[in-house]
Protein backbone atom coordinates (compact mmCIF):
# COMPACT_ATOMS: atom_id res chain seq x y z
CA UNK A 1 0.00 0.00 0.00
CA UNK A 2 1.15 3.50 -0.72
CA UNK A 3 2.22 5.73 2.12
CA UNK A 4 -0.74 7.99 1.50
CA UNK A 5 -3.19 5.09 1.58
CA UNK A 6 -1.65 3.84 4.79
CA UNK A 7 -1.92 7.26 6.38
CA UNK A 8 -5.56 7.54 5.39
CA UNK A 9 -6.18 4.07 6.77
CA UNK A 10 -4.60 5.04 10.06
CA UNK A 11 -6.51 8.28 10.36
CA UNK A 12 -9.79 6.59 9.65
CA UNK A 13 -8.95 4.00 12.27
CA UNK A 14 -8.27 6.66 14.86
CA UNK A 15 -11.48 8.47 14.06
CA UNK A 16 -13.38 5.21 14.22
CA UNK A 17 -11.89 4.28 17.58
CA UNK A 18 -12.67 7.72 18.93
CA UNK A 19 -16.20 7.36 17.66
CA UNK A 20 -16.63 4.02 19.37
CA UNK A 21 -15.22 5.36 22.63
CA UNK A 22 -17.56 8.34 22.53
CA UNK A 23 -20.41 6.03 21.70
CA UNK A 24 -19.64 4.07 24.83
CA UNK A 25 -19.39 7.10 27.10
CA UNK A 26 -22.86 6.61 28.64
CA UNK A 27 -21.84 3.12 29.67
CA UNK A 28 -18.51 4.18 31.12
CA UNK A 29 -20.38 6.90 32.93
CA UNK A 30 -22.63 4.31 34.53
CA UNK A 31 -19.69 2.27 35.76
CA UNK A 32 -17.84 5.28 37.12
CA UNK A 33 -20.92 6.62 38.88
CA UNK A 34 -21.22 3.36 40.74
CA UNK A 35 -17.90 4.10 42.39
CA UNK A 36 -18.67 7.68 43.31
CA UNK A 37 -20.06 9.08 46.52
CA UNK A 38 -23.37 10.91 46.31
CA UNK A 39 -21.72 14.29 46.49
CA UNK A 40 -19.31 13.47 43.68
CA UNK A 41 -21.95 11.88 41.51
CA UNK A 42 -24.00 15.07 41.61
CA UNK A 43 -21.16 17.52 41.27
CA UNK A 44 -21.02 20.08 38.54
CA UNK A 45 -18.79 20.00 36.56
CA UNK A 46 -18.98 16.22 36.46
CA UNK A 47 -15.89 14.62 37.85
CA UNK A 48 -13.78 12.39 35.69
CA UNK A 49 -11.17 11.77 38.32
CA UNK A 50 -12.39 11.03 41.77
CA UNK A 51 -11.76 8.96 44.81
CA UNK A 52 -13.29 5.58 44.11
CA UNK A 53 -15.37 3.98 46.80
CA UNK A 54 -17.25 0.72 46.99
CA UNK A 55 -19.71 2.16 49.44
CA UNK A 56 -22.56 2.00 46.93
CA UNK A 57 -21.98 -1.67 46.28
CA UNK A 58 -21.83 -2.42 49.97
CA UNK A 59 -24.96 -0.39 50.74
CA UNK A 60 -27.08 -1.85 48.04
CA UNK A 61 -25.97 -5.46 47.98
CA UNK A 62 -25.53 -6.03 51.64
CA UNK A 63 -27.61 -3.53 53.54
CA UNK A 64 -30.43 -3.28 51.08
CA UNK A 65 -30.25 -6.99 50.47
CA UNK A 66 -29.87 -6.83 46.71
CA UNK A 67 -27.52 -9.76 47.12
CA UNK A 68 -30.67 -11.81 47.41
CA UNK A 69 -31.93 -10.44 44.11
CA UNK A 70 -28.61 -11.27 42.54
CA UNK A 71 -29.01 -14.82 43.74
CA UNK A 72 -32.57 -14.90 42.38
CA UNK A 73 -31.37 -13.74 38.98
CA UNK A 74 -28.78 -16.50 38.97
CA UNK A 75 -31.27 -19.16 40.04
CA UNK A 76 -33.77 -18.14 37.40
CA UNK A 77 -31.15 -17.90 34.66
CA UNK A 78 -29.74 -21.29 35.54
CA UNK A 79 -33.03 -23.13 35.50
CA UNK A 80 -34.30 -21.28 32.46
CA UNK A 81 -31.18 -22.27 30.55
CA UNK A 82 -31.43 -25.87 31.67
CA UNK A 83 -35.08 -26.25 30.78
CA UNK A 84 -34.72 -24.41 27.49
CA UNK A 85 -31.93 -26.78 26.52
CA UNK A 86 -33.69 -29.92 27.70
CA UNK A 87 -36.80 -28.99 25.77
CA UNK A 88 -35.20 -27.22 22.83
CA UNK A 89 -32.33 -29.49 21.88
CA UNK A 90 -34.43 -32.50 20.91
CA UNK A 91 -36.74 -30.28 18.91
CA UNK A 92 -33.82 -28.65 17.12
CA UNK A 93 -32.42 -32.06 16.33
CA UNK A 94 -35.75 -33.18 14.98
CA UNK A 95 -35.97 -30.16 12.71
CA UNK A 96 -32.52 -30.92 11.47
CA UNK A 97 -32.92 -34.62 10.90
CA UNK A 98 -36.56 -35.32 10.25
CA UNK A 99 -39.31 -34.06 8.06
CA UNK A 100 -42.45 -34.30 10.12
CA UNK A 101 -45.93 -33.49 9.00
CA UNK A 102 -46.76 -30.09 10.36
CA UNK A 103 -43.24 -29.12 11.30
CA UNK A 104 -43.57 -26.04 9.16
CA UNK A 105 -46.44 -24.96 11.36
CA UNK A 106 -44.38 -25.61 14.44
CA UNK A 107 -41.51 -23.65 13.01
CA UNK A 108 -43.82 -20.77 12.24
CA UNK A 109 -45.23 -20.96 15.74
CA UNK A 110 -41.73 -20.71 17.18
CA UNK A 111 -41.20 -17.63 15.06
CA UNK A 112 -44.36 -16.22 16.53
CA UNK A 113 -43.15 -16.54 20.08
CA UNK A 114 -40.17 -14.44 19.24
CA UNK A 115 -42.34 -11.78 17.68
CA UNK A 116 -44.92 -11.58 20.44
CA UNK A 117 -44.66 -8.53 22.68
CA UNK A 118 -44.05 -9.56 26.25
CA UNK A 119 -47.10 -7.72 27.59
CA UNK A 120 -49.44 -9.82 25.46
CA UNK A 121 -48.39 -12.90 27.41
CA UNK A 122 -47.70 -11.22 30.75
CA UNK A 123 -51.28 -10.19 31.38
CA UNK A 124 -52.90 -13.64 31.06
CA UNK A 125 -49.94 -15.43 32.61
CA UNK A 126 -50.45 -13.22 35.63
CA UNK A 127 -53.94 -14.56 36.13
CA UNK A 128 -53.06 -18.13 35.24
CA UNK A 129 -50.14 -18.21 37.63
CA UNK A 130 -52.29 -16.65 40.33
CA UNK A 131 -54.91 -19.35 39.88
CA UNK A 132 -52.24 -22.04 40.02
CA UNK A 133 -50.79 -20.38 43.14
CA UNK A 134 -47.53 -20.06 41.30
CA UNK A 135 -47.44 -16.31 41.46
CA UNK A 136 -44.36 -14.86 43.14
CA UNK A 137 -42.71 -18.25 42.93
CA UNK A 138 -39.69 -19.25 40.94
CA UNK A 139 -41.59 -21.85 38.94
CA UNK A 140 -43.81 -19.32 37.22
CA UNK A 141 -41.08 -17.05 35.96
CA UNK A 142 -38.79 -19.94 35.05
CA UNK A 143 -41.46 -21.55 32.90
CA UNK A 144 -42.33 -18.26 31.25
CA UNK A 145 -38.77 -17.37 30.38
CA UNK A 146 -38.09 -20.89 29.17
CA UNK A 147 -40.99 -20.76 26.76
CA UNK A 148 -39.62 -17.59 25.23
CA UNK A 149 -36.19 -19.11 24.89
CA UNK A 150 -37.21 -22.35 23.22
CA UNK A 151 -37.59 -20.72 19.83
CA UNK A 152 -34.15 -19.32 20.23
CA UNK A 153 -32.60 -22.65 21.19
CA UNK A 154 -34.33 -24.46 18.34
CA UNK A 155 -33.21 -22.02 15.71
CA UNK A 156 -29.70 -21.67 16.87
CA UNK A 157 -29.09 -25.36 17.48
CA UNK A 158 -30.75 -26.41 14.25
CA UNK A 159 -28.01 -24.52 12.46
CA UNK A 160 -25.38 -26.32 14.47
CA UNK A 161 -26.97 -29.73 14.01
CA UNK A 162 -27.14 -29.04 10.30
CA UNK A 163 -23.38 -28.78 10.19
CA UNK A 164 -23.01 -32.40 11.23
CA UNK A 165 -23.16 -34.56 8.13
CA UNK A 166 -26.11 -36.92 8.05
CA UNK A 167 -23.76 -39.78 7.18
CA UNK A 168 -22.48 -39.88 10.72
CA UNK A 169 -26.00 -40.49 11.95
CA UNK A 170 -26.54 -43.12 9.28
CA UNK A 171 -23.47 -45.09 10.27
CA UNK A 172 -24.46 -44.97 13.91
CA UNK A 173 -27.93 -46.24 13.04
CA UNK A 174 -26.46 -49.00 10.99
CA UNK A 175 -24.46 -50.03 14.03
CA UNK A 176 -27.72 -50.47 15.88
CA UNK A 177 -27.97 -47.14 17.63
CA UNK A 178 -31.40 -45.67 18.17
CA UNK A 179 -32.19 -42.09 17.22
CA UNK A 180 -32.07 -41.13 20.86
CA UNK A 181 -28.72 -42.78 21.24
CA UNK A 182 -27.39 -41.06 18.18
CA UNK A 183 -28.69 -37.79 19.51
CA UNK A 184 -27.02 -38.14 22.88
CA UNK A 185 -23.83 -39.85 21.96
CA UNK A 186 -22.96 -38.17 18.70
CA UNK A 187 -24.77 -35.00 17.87
CA UNK A 188 -24.61 -33.41 21.26
CA UNK A 189 -20.92 -33.89 21.89
CA UNK A 190 -20.13 -32.68 18.39
CA UNK A 191 -22.06 -29.47 18.87
CA UNK A 192 -20.79 -28.80 22.38
CA UNK A 193 -19.51 -25.37 21.43
CA UNK A 194 -22.80 -24.44 19.90
CA UNK A 195 -24.64 -25.62 22.97
CA UNK A 196 -22.36 -23.60 25.19
CA UNK A 197 -23.00 -20.50 23.14
CA UNK A 198 -26.73 -21.13 23.08
CA UNK A 199 -26.84 -21.58 26.84
CA UNK A 200 -25.09 -18.31 27.34
CA UNK A 201 -27.58 -16.52 25.15
CA UNK A 202 -30.47 -18.10 27.04
CA UNK A 203 -29.00 -17.03 30.32
CA UNK A 204 -28.47 -13.49 29.06
CA UNK A 205 -32.02 -13.22 27.76
CA UNK A 206 -33.42 -14.26 31.10
CA UNK A 207 -30.98 -12.20 33.13
CA UNK A 208 -31.81 -8.95 31.35
CA UNK A 209 -35.55 -9.38 31.13
CA UNK A 210 -37.77 -6.95 33.01
CA UNK A 211 -41.48 -6.91 32.31
CA UNK A 212 -42.39 -10.58 32.68
CA UNK A 213 -40.23 -10.85 35.80
CA UNK A 214 -41.80 -7.70 37.20
CA UNK A 215 -45.25 -9.16 36.87
CA UNK A 216 -44.58 -12.73 37.86
CA UNK A 217 -42.06 -12.44 40.67
CA UNK A 218 -42.69 -11.27 44.18
CA UNK A 219 -40.73 -9.72 46.97
CA UNK A 220 -38.75 -12.84 47.68
CA UNK A 221 -38.15 -13.93 44.13
CA UNK A 222 -37.50 -10.59 42.44
CA UNK A 223 -34.62 -10.59 40.00
CA UNK A 224 -32.14 -7.72 39.82
CA UNK A 225 -33.90 -5.69 37.11
CA UNK A 226 -37.19 -5.98 38.99
CA UNK A 227 -35.68 -4.77 42.25
CA UNK A 228 -33.87 -1.91 40.59
CA UNK A 229 -36.73 0.65 40.40
CA UNK A 230 -37.08 0.21 44.16
CA UNK A 231 -34.07 2.48 44.52
CA UNK A 232 -36.14 5.45 43.44
CA UNK A 233 -37.80 6.51 46.67
CA UNK A 234 -39.57 9.65 47.87
CA UNK A 235 -36.42 10.25 49.91
CA UNK A 236 -34.51 10.69 46.71
CA UNK A 237 -33.10 8.47 44.01
CA UNK A 238 -29.96 6.62 44.96
CA UNK A 239 -28.15 7.03 41.66
CA UNK A 240 -24.85 5.65 42.92
CA UNK A 241 -26.56 2.49 44.03
CA UNK A 242 -28.61 2.26 40.85
CA UNK A 243 -25.35 2.50 38.93
CA UNK A 244 -23.87 -0.23 41.12
CA UNK A 245 -26.74 -2.61 40.46
CA UNK A 246 -26.76 -1.65 36.79
CA UNK A 247 -23.07 -2.47 36.55
CA UNK A 248 -23.57 -5.83 38.21
CA UNK A 249 -26.42 -6.59 35.83
CA UNK A 250 -24.23 -5.87 32.83
CA UNK A 251 -20.75 -7.09 33.71
CA UNK A 252 -21.40 -10.85 33.74
CA UNK A 253 -23.28 -10.49 30.48
CA UNK A 254 -20.35 -8.73 28.88
CA UNK A 255 -17.90 -11.32 30.06
CA UNK A 256 -19.96 -14.16 28.68
CA UNK A 257 -20.75 -12.30 25.50
CA UNK A 258 -17.07 -11.79 24.92
CA UNK A 259 -16.52 -15.51 25.28
CA UNK A 260 -19.13 -16.38 22.68
CA UNK A 261 -18.28 -13.52 20.41
CA UNK A 262 -17.66 -15.90 17.57
CA UNK A 263 -21.24 -17.09 17.71
CA UNK A 264 -22.74 -13.67 18.25
CA UNK A 265 -24.14 -13.24 14.81
CA UNK A 266 -25.56 -16.72 14.78
CA UNK A 267 -27.16 -16.01 18.09
CA UNK A 268 -28.76 -12.80 17.01
CA UNK A 269 -30.08 -14.05 13.76
CA UNK A 270 -30.93 -17.37 15.41
CA UNK A 271 -31.96 -19.20 12.33
CA UNK A 272 -33.63 -16.25 10.79
CA UNK A 273 -31.11 -16.45 8.00
CA UNK A 274 -29.96 -19.69 6.52
Amino acid at each position, binding site marked *: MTKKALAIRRT*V*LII*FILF*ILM*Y*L*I*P*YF*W*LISTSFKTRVE*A*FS*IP*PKLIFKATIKNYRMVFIEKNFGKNLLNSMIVAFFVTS*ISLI*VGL*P*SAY*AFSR*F*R*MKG*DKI*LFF*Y*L*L*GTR*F*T*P*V*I*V*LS*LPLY*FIMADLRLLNSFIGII*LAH*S*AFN*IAFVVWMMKGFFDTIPKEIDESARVDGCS*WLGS*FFRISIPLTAHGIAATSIFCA*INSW*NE*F*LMAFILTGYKTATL*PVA*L*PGLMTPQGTFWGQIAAV*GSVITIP*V*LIFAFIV*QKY*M*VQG*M*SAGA*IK
Partner: protein
Amino acid sequence: MSLKVDSKQRTALMFHIPAIVLLTLITMVPLIYNLRISFYDFSLTRAGSRDIFVGLENYKMILSDHEFWNSMWVTAKFVIASTFIQLVLGVIIALMLNYYSGSLNRLLTSLVMIPMMVAPLVVGLMYSFILNPQFGLYSFLVDLFHLNLSKTPLSAGGSALFVLILTDVWEWTPFMALMTLAALKAAPIEPYEAALIDGANRSQIFFRITIPLIRPVIAVSIILRGVEACKVFDKAFILTGGGPGNSTEVIDLFTYREAFVKYNFSYAAALCVVLFIIMLIFGILYWNFVIGKQSND
Protein backbone atom coordinates in the same frame (compact mmCIF):
# COMPACT_ATOMS: atom_id res chain seq x y z
CA MET B 1 -41.55 -48.63 3.41
CA SER B 2 -44.52 -46.87 4.96
CA LEU B 3 -43.69 -48.45 8.31
CA LYS B 4 -40.29 -46.87 8.27
CA VAL B 5 -41.76 -43.46 7.55
CA ASP B 6 -44.27 -43.88 10.35
CA SER B 7 -41.67 -44.76 12.91
CA LYS B 8 -39.53 -41.87 11.83
CA GLN B 9 -42.56 -39.62 12.12
CA ARG B 10 -43.21 -40.96 15.56
CA THR B 11 -39.63 -40.41 16.63
CA ALA B 12 -39.76 -36.90 15.27
CA LEU B 13 -42.93 -36.26 17.19
CA MET B 14 -41.37 -37.58 20.38
CA PHE B 15 -38.44 -35.28 19.98
CA HIS B 16 -40.77 -32.35 19.46
CA ILE B 17 -43.21 -33.13 22.25
CA PRO B 18 -41.52 -31.43 25.21
CA ALA B 19 -41.31 -28.23 23.22
CA ILE B 20 -44.88 -28.49 22.03
CA VAL B 21 -46.16 -29.04 25.55
CA LEU B 22 -44.25 -26.18 27.11
CA LEU B 23 -45.12 -23.82 24.30
CA THR B 24 -48.79 -24.69 24.47
CA LEU B 25 -48.87 -24.12 28.20
CA ILE B 26 -47.00 -20.88 28.24
CA THR B 27 -48.04 -19.29 24.99
CA MET B 28 -51.11 -20.89 23.48
CA VAL B 29 -53.13 -21.06 26.70
CA PRO B 30 -52.45 -17.44 27.64
CA LEU B 31 -53.39 -16.24 24.18
CA ILE B 32 -56.69 -18.04 24.36
CA TYR B 33 -57.18 -16.69 27.86
CA ASN B 34 -56.66 -13.17 26.52
CA LEU B 35 -59.24 -13.77 23.85
CA ARG B 36 -61.71 -15.03 26.38
CA ILE B 37 -61.30 -12.20 28.86
CA SER B 38 -61.55 -9.66 26.07
CA PHE B 39 -65.18 -10.59 25.60
CA TYR B 40 -66.05 -9.66 29.16
CA ASP B 41 -66.09 -6.44 31.12
CA PHE B 42 -63.50 -7.27 33.76
CA SER B 43 -62.18 -4.23 35.57
CA LEU B 44 -61.28 -3.77 39.21
CA THR B 45 -63.31 -0.58 39.28
CA ARG B 46 -66.55 -2.46 38.86
CA ALA B 47 -67.11 -5.34 41.23
CA GLY B 48 -68.44 -8.49 39.69
CA SER B 49 -67.53 -7.27 36.25
CA ARG B 50 -65.42 -10.35 35.70
CA ASP B 51 -68.49 -12.28 34.67
CA ILE B 52 -70.28 -9.71 32.56
CA PHE B 53 -70.23 -10.72 28.92
CA VAL B 54 -69.97 -7.85 26.47
CA GLY B 55 -68.98 -9.50 23.23
CA LEU B 56 -67.04 -7.24 20.89
CA GLU B 57 -67.66 -4.11 22.95
CA ASN B 58 -64.01 -3.76 23.98
CA TYR B 59 -62.87 -3.97 20.37
CA LYS B 60 -65.33 -1.28 19.38
CA MET B 61 -63.96 0.85 22.20
CA ILE B 62 -60.44 0.36 20.96
CA LEU B 63 -61.36 1.55 17.49
CA SER B 64 -62.88 4.71 18.86
CA ASP B 65 -60.22 5.27 21.50
CA HIS B 66 -58.33 8.42 20.65
CA GLU B 67 -55.48 7.44 22.87
CA PHE B 68 -55.08 4.05 21.31
CA TRP B 69 -54.60 5.62 17.91
CA ASN B 70 -52.20 8.14 19.37
CA SER B 71 -50.24 5.28 20.83
CA MET B 72 -50.15 3.45 17.50
CA TRP B 73 -48.95 6.59 15.80
CA VAL B 74 -46.24 7.15 18.39
CA THR B 75 -45.13 3.53 18.04
CA ALA B 76 -45.07 3.79 14.25
CA LYS B 77 -42.96 6.93 14.38
CA PHE B 78 -40.66 5.31 16.85
CA VAL B 79 -40.19 2.05 14.97
CA ILE B 80 -39.60 3.64 11.59
CA ALA B 81 -37.20 6.29 12.84
CA SER B 82 -35.30 3.96 15.11
CA THR B 83 -34.92 1.16 12.57
CA PHE B 84 -33.87 3.54 9.82
CA ILE B 85 -31.21 5.29 11.88
CA GLN B 86 -29.90 1.97 13.16
CA LEU B 87 -29.71 0.70 9.61
CA VAL B 88 -27.66 3.58 8.31
CA LEU B 89 -25.40 3.77 11.31
CA GLY B 90 -25.08 0.00 11.52
CA VAL B 91 -24.05 -0.41 7.92
CA ILE B 92 -21.45 2.32 8.24
CA ILE B 93 -20.02 0.72 11.36
CA ALA B 94 -20.00 -2.68 9.69
CA LEU B 95 -18.12 -1.31 6.72
CA MET B 96 -15.60 0.25 9.05
CA LEU B 97 -15.18 -2.95 11.01
CA ASN B 98 -14.75 -4.88 7.80
CA TYR B 99 -12.02 -2.54 6.78
CA TYR B 100 -9.75 -3.79 9.53
CA SER B 101 -8.93 -7.38 10.18
CA GLY B 102 -7.35 -9.67 12.69
CA SER B 103 -7.10 -8.99 16.37
CA LEU B 104 -7.87 -5.31 15.88
CA ASN B 105 -11.13 -6.38 14.38
CA ARG B 106 -11.87 -8.63 17.29
CA LEU B 107 -11.19 -5.87 19.77
CA LEU B 108 -13.31 -3.33 17.95
CA THR B 109 -16.12 -5.82 17.53
CA SER B 110 -16.05 -6.56 21.23
CA LEU B 111 -16.37 -2.88 22.02
CA VAL B 112 -19.15 -2.40 19.51
CA MET B 113 -21.02 -5.30 21.07
CA ILE B 114 -21.29 -3.69 24.49
CA PRO B 115 -24.46 -1.56 24.19
CA MET B 116 -26.44 -4.54 22.94
CA MET B 117 -25.65 -6.52 26.05
CA VAL B 118 -26.72 -3.92 28.56
CA ALA B 119 -30.15 -4.72 29.97
CA PRO B 120 -32.71 -2.37 28.37
CA LEU B 121 -33.89 -1.24 31.78
CA VAL B 122 -30.36 -0.26 32.71
CA VAL B 123 -30.02 1.65 29.42
CA GLY B 124 -33.10 3.62 30.38
CA LEU B 125 -31.77 4.40 33.84
CA MET B 126 -28.38 5.30 32.44
CA TYR B 127 -29.84 7.90 30.13
CA SER B 128 -32.17 9.10 32.84
CA PHE B 129 -29.17 9.95 34.95
CA ILE B 130 -27.22 11.55 32.14
CA LEU B 131 -30.16 13.71 31.14
CA ASN B 132 -30.85 15.05 34.60
CA PRO B 133 -31.14 18.82 34.16
CA GLN B 134 -29.32 19.65 37.36
CA PHE B 135 -26.35 17.36 37.45
CA GLY B 136 -26.42 15.21 34.36
CA LEU B 137 -23.54 14.89 31.95
CA TYR B 138 -25.65 16.05 29.04
CA SER B 139 -26.64 19.30 30.72
CA PHE B 140 -23.01 20.01 31.51
CA LEU B 141 -21.89 19.36 27.95
CA VAL B 142 -24.60 21.63 26.55
CA ASP B 143 -23.27 24.41 28.75
CA LEU B 144 -19.65 23.64 28.04
CA PHE B 145 -20.00 23.77 24.29
CA HIS B 146 -22.64 26.48 24.35
CA LEU B 147 -24.92 24.31 22.28
CA ASN B 148 -28.26 25.70 21.29
CA LEU B 149 -30.08 22.68 22.68
CA SER B 150 -32.72 22.32 25.33
CA LYS B 151 -31.32 21.11 28.62
CA THR B 152 -34.47 19.23 29.33
CA PRO B 153 -35.24 17.17 26.26
CA LEU B 154 -37.54 14.95 28.25
CA SER B 155 -39.88 17.84 28.97
CA ALA B 156 -41.16 18.40 25.49
CA GLY B 157 -43.10 15.84 23.48
CA GLY B 158 -41.08 15.88 20.29
CA SER B 159 -37.70 15.79 21.92
CA ALA B 160 -38.76 13.17 24.47
CA LEU B 161 -39.67 10.81 21.64
CA PHE B 162 -36.39 11.64 20.02
CA VAL B 163 -34.54 10.76 23.21
CA LEU B 164 -36.36 7.44 23.33
CA ILE B 165 -35.42 6.76 19.72
CA LEU B 166 -31.85 7.71 20.52
CA THR B 167 -31.60 5.29 23.41
CA ASP B 168 -33.00 2.53 21.24
CA VAL B 169 -30.55 3.40 18.48
CA TRP B 170 -27.69 3.43 20.96
CA GLU B 171 -28.61 0.03 22.25
CA TRP B 172 -29.37 -1.80 19.04
CA THR B 173 -27.20 -0.32 16.31
CA PRO B 174 -24.53 -2.88 17.23
CA PHE B 175 -27.06 -5.54 16.26
CA MET B 176 -27.43 -4.12 12.77
CA ALA B 177 -23.70 -3.60 12.53
CA LEU B 178 -22.82 -7.16 13.45
CA MET B 179 -25.44 -8.69 11.19
CA THR B 180 -24.23 -6.61 8.27
CA LEU B 181 -20.64 -7.45 9.11
CA ALA B 182 -21.43 -11.14 9.01
CA ALA B 183 -23.06 -10.71 5.62
CA LEU B 184 -20.08 -8.77 4.36
CA LYS B 185 -17.72 -11.45 5.54
CA ALA B 186 -19.78 -14.18 3.97
CA ALA B 187 -19.95 -12.36 0.67
CA PRO B 188 -18.14 -14.15 -2.11
CA ILE B 189 -14.97 -12.57 -3.36
CA GLU B 190 -15.42 -13.19 -7.07
CA PRO B 191 -17.69 -10.28 -7.91
CA TYR B 192 -15.19 -7.91 -6.34
CA GLU B 193 -12.26 -9.36 -8.21
CA ALA B 194 -14.16 -9.18 -11.45
CA ALA B 195 -15.14 -5.59 -10.78
CA LEU B 196 -11.59 -4.54 -10.00
CA ILE B 197 -10.39 -6.15 -13.20
CA ASP B 198 -13.05 -4.23 -15.04
CA GLY B 199 -11.69 -1.04 -13.51
CA ALA B 200 -14.68 -0.13 -11.32
CA ASN B 201 -14.11 2.57 -8.72
CA ARG B 202 -14.89 2.48 -4.99
CA SER B 203 -18.38 3.85 -5.05
CA GLN B 204 -19.43 1.71 -8.00
CA ILE B 205 -18.23 -1.36 -6.19
CA PHE B 206 -20.12 -0.32 -3.12
CA PHE B 207 -23.43 0.42 -4.71
CA ARG B 208 -23.50 -2.19 -7.42
CA ILE B 209 -21.94 -5.13 -5.62
CA THR B 210 -21.78 -4.75 -1.89
CA ILE B 211 -25.31 -3.55 -1.34
CA PRO B 212 -27.09 -6.17 -3.40
CA LEU B 213 -25.03 -8.89 -1.72
CA ILE B 214 -25.97 -7.85 1.77
CA ARG B 215 -29.51 -6.87 0.94
CA PRO B 216 -31.12 -10.11 2.19
CA VAL B 217 -29.45 -9.77 5.54
CA ILE B 218 -30.45 -6.15 5.76
CA ALA B 219 -34.03 -7.06 5.01
CA VAL B 220 -34.06 -9.61 7.78
CA SER B 221 -32.43 -7.22 10.19
CA ILE B 222 -34.96 -4.55 9.42
CA ILE B 223 -37.86 -6.80 10.09
CA LEU B 224 -36.36 -8.29 13.23
CA ARG B 225 -35.48 -4.91 14.62
CA GLY B 226 -38.73 -3.42 13.52
CA VAL B 227 -40.69 -6.00 15.40
CA GLU B 228 -38.49 -5.91 18.43
CA ALA B 229 -38.61 -2.16 18.53
CA CYS B 230 -42.20 -2.58 19.60
CA LYS B 231 -40.76 -4.15 22.68
CA VAL B 232 -39.26 -0.93 23.91
CA PHE B 233 -41.26 -1.20 27.12
CA ASP B 234 -38.35 -1.28 29.57
CA LYS B 235 -36.80 1.94 28.36
CA ALA B 236 -40.03 3.84 27.88
CA PHE B 237 -41.26 2.76 31.29
CA ILE B 238 -38.27 4.02 33.19
CA LEU B 239 -37.27 7.00 31.08
CA THR B 240 -40.49 8.78 30.24
CA GLY B 241 -43.38 6.76 31.58
CA GLY B 242 -45.24 7.67 28.42
CA GLY B 243 -44.93 11.38 28.96
CA PRO B 244 -44.84 14.25 28.69
CA GLY B 245 -48.54 13.99 28.06
CA ASN B 246 -48.70 10.89 25.93
CA SER B 247 -46.02 11.74 23.43
CA THR B 248 -43.94 8.65 24.13
CA GLU B 249 -46.77 6.27 24.96
CA VAL B 250 -45.69 3.35 22.85
CA ILE B 251 -48.26 0.64 22.43
CA ASP B 252 -46.91 -1.84 24.96
CA LEU B 253 -46.68 0.89 27.57
CA PHE B 254 -50.26 1.87 26.78
CA THR B 255 -51.41 -1.73 27.21
CA TYR B 256 -49.47 -2.08 30.44
CA ARG B 257 -51.09 1.06 31.81
CA GLU B 258 -54.59 -0.14 30.99
CA ALA B 259 -53.88 -3.47 32.64
CA PHE B 260 -51.73 -2.77 35.65
CA VAL B 261 -52.39 0.86 36.48
CA LYS B 262 -56.03 1.32 35.60
CA TYR B 263 -56.88 -2.34 36.14
CA ASN B 264 -59.13 -2.45 33.07
CA PHE B 265 -58.21 -6.06 32.47
CA SER B 266 -60.69 -6.89 29.75
CA TYR B 267 -59.87 -3.81 27.74
CA ALA B 268 -56.18 -4.57 28.10
CA ALA B 269 -56.76 -8.15 27.01
CA ALA B 270 -58.51 -6.89 23.89
CA LEU B 271 -55.53 -4.63 23.23
CA CYS B 272 -53.25 -7.64 23.60
CA VAL B 273 -55.27 -9.55 21.04
CA VAL B 274 -55.07 -6.65 18.60
CA LEU B 275 -51.32 -6.37 19.18
CA PHE B 276 -50.90 -10.06 18.65
CA ILE B 277 -52.77 -9.93 15.36
CA ILE B 278 -50.57 -7.09 14.15
CA MET B 279 -47.46 -9.06 15.04
CA LEU B 280 -48.91 -12.12 13.35
CA ILE B 281 -49.27 -10.14 10.15
CA PHE B 282 -45.65 -9.07 10.42
CA GLY B 283 -44.68 -12.68 11.02
CA ILE B 284 -46.54 -13.86 7.95
CA LEU B 285 -44.95 -11.14 5.84
CA TYR B 286 -41.59 -12.16 7.16
CA TRP B 287 -42.25 -15.79 6.44
CA ASN B 288 -43.32 -15.14 2.90
CA PHE B 289 -40.76 -12.60 1.88
CA VAL B 290 -37.73 -13.75 3.74
CA ILE B 291 -37.85 -17.43 4.52
CA GLY B 292 -39.84 -18.18 1.46
CA LYS B 293 -37.36 -16.29 -0.64
CA GLN B 294 -34.45 -18.13 0.88
CA SER B 295 -35.79 -21.53 0.09
CA ASN B 296 -36.10 -20.35 -3.47
CA ASP B 297 -32.52 -19.16 -3.64
